[in-house]
């Protein structure tokens, strides 16, 4: 049994909210730079060049990469031999978000009730996904999610007979519909299988995988590569203004499902695909 104080979690989450919003992870940065050098259209090169400049200004000047600093999505993979002390965990996580968004000059973009729509003014609450895993560590992933791209995400309850072809069509349909609204070049997270909610969580978590790290399953890896190619042939391009770089990566995760179903979730993320990860 290992004891972790919840104040430690607060502190880590505070720092991670700020870090994720000021610096894209090295894999994302690299992917955008690679896309800039591979882009064939003039307008596409122009936009990608500006995105590189934008990342530099954000880091140098201490200003968020994008003004939509997102709703804080947090994955907590908690070792089953961990014992928390010093107050309840959920409050500690939200306190970290509150401090991070205040001290980091991040935008407060959360409304307390989806219909009454009053801003909570501190960006809480976060959306938290807990998982109990073996061991005595806690892996924290903070992934602030912007809603330009979130709004273009979709869940499809396909039929088993739709098969792989059906999945590919669903992903392409979602990407085409997203177009310029999702601030391309995008990262596309796909969850296949499970249930209605499980596939959506898979898709969300797939976005936190390092860009261009492919699936371990050979047939899924092939699908990731094929979809990326097809997406980049749509012509949508950077900013939706035309070009090759419509997506930087397609990440697919799968889970067993029911004999009667084939759930597919497509979680679209923009080029500001933020994720900070730490192990406590």
């Amino acid at each position, binding site marked *: 049994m290992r004891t972790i104080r919840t104040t430690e979690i607060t502190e880590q989450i505070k720092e991670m909210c700020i870090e994720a919003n000021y610096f894209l992870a090295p894999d994302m940065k690299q992917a955008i730079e690679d896309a800039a050098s591979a882009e064939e259209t003039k307008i596409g090169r122009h936009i990608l060049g500006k995105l590189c400049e*934008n990342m530099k200004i954000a880091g140098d000047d201490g*200003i968020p990469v*994008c*003004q*939509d600093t997102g709703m804080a999505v947090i994955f907590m993979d908690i070792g089953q031999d961990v014992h928390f002390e010093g107050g309840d965990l959920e409050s500690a996580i939200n306190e970290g978000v509150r401090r991070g968004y205040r001290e980091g*000059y991040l935008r407060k973009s959360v409304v307390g009730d989806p219909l009454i729509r009053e801003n909570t003014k501190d960006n809480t609450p976060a959306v938290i996904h807990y998982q109990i895993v073996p061991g005595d560590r806690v892996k924290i992933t903070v992934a602030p999610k912007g809603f330009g791209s979130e709004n273009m995400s979709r869940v499809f309850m396909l039929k088993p007979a739709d098969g792989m072809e059906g999945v590919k069509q669903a992903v392409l349909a979602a990407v085409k519909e997203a177009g*310029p609204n999702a601030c391309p070049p995008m990262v596309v997270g796909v969850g296949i299988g499970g249930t209605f909610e499980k596939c959506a969580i898979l898709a969300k978590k797939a976005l936190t995988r390092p860009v261009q790290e492919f699936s371990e399953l050979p047939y899924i890896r092939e699908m990731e590569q094929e979809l990326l190619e097809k997406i980049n042939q749509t012509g949508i391009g950077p900013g939706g203004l035309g070009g090759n770089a419509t997506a930087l990566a397609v990440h697919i995760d799968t889970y067993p499902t029911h004999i009667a179903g084939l759930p597919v979730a497509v979680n679209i993320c923009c080029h500001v695909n933020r994720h900070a990860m730490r192990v406590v």
Partner: protein
Amino acid sequence: MEKYIQAPLDEETIKDLRAGDFVYITGTIYTARDAAHKRMSEALVAGGALPIELRNNIIYYMGPSPAREGRAIGSAGPTTSGRMDRYTPALLDIGLKGMIGKGKRSGEVKEAMVRNGCVYFAAIGGAGALLSKAIKKSEVIAYEDLGTEAVRRLEVKDFPVIVVMDADGNDLYERAAE
């Protein structure tokens, strides 16, 4: 083509703008996004006054991150314009001439743009740090309680945008996805 223009807009300037032009805006523009549009629309329906004069002006769909001490504004890139579509035709019909945002517009907005001779610009989505450099002054002028969604008056210098839809209804997004 690269063009340098002044805001507020005039007819001559708008006529000269073509979908695909790279444009640099200098002058005064206003911000408003979802919640401010809802309030303005309610004010119009109730026959009340709007907090800003729309005639010949440009609205930037943007809600900034907070400014650090000594800076005009925080990160300040565009939000998705389509969410404002429901409110937009009424604003275009009473004189709004330009919009800056990102993403597709509805058929109704396009019609209202052509009918009134208006222009829709895109700023680069997700480039809020870069775009903040072109904003020299920012002041909340209405709906302060809305926080980031308040209406702001911005003084901009060579603010970089691209014409997506011109007053003749040409649409750069449609061309891109062909």
